[in-house]
């Protein structure tokens, strides 16, 4: 039976401290995943090897996954999620967000591995005939 490779855009709500939450993409598609990886590197000069962009480490993962959050601004109004807003929040809160996103990313990776193993049907090894000595 042919497979459907399209990533269904689903949202999962992940709790944070003090009753706050994040809304995350359940799974990244290929374009989002590759864009996230690409954002973590930069080319210092044409022809040189790409180097890790420390400013983007973690940041690109949060931007790739997060769709929204429960945070509010100084006037108690909903705080729109954006790259600019993300740069303006307290480092401790960013660390909390990053930890939640990384935990979600790891659980998705485990699900992908489990699905692949189940799909391949390679979990049971075949019997080996004893060789004639």
């Amino acid at each position, binding site marked *: 039976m042919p497979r459907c490779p399209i990533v269904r*855009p689903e949202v999962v709500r992940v709790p944070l401290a003090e009753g706050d939450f994040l809304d995350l993409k359940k799974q990244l598609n290929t374009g989002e995943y590759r864009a996230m990886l690409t954002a973590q590197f930069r080319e210092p000069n044409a022809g040189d090897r790409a180097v890790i962009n420390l400013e983007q480490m973690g940041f690109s993962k949060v931007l790739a996954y997060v769709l929204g959050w429960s945070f509010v601004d100084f006037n108690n109004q909903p705080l729109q999620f954006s790259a600019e807003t993300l740069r303006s929040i307290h480092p401790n809160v960013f660390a909390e967000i990053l930890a939640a996103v990384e935990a979600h990313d790891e659980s998705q990776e485990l699900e992908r591995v489990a699905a692949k193993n189940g799909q391949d049907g390679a979990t049971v090894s075949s019997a080996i005939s004893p060789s004639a000595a």
Partner: protein
Amino acid sequence: MVGSIRGVVGQIRWSYYIAATINNYTVTRADDHWTLVATVVLSDAFKLSQQPLIFVAPHAKGEWRWPILSCALQNGALSARLGQMEL
């Protein structure tokens, strides 16, 4: 009963993705259904072909949302049949 809503900016979304950005829309209500006529300024053909699609029209206090039952896009002109407004 017939009524209509006119607006400038709207979107067609497939879940959290923007399938199309639209301009100058008119939503008309006729008894048991709604229809949408609009101009598409940006669109993603793949996302527009997915289901379910939602038409989102922002207003001062939030946004109106309708499920799209069927739609057709020709030369930037979009026409769609909408379900009941989501409350």
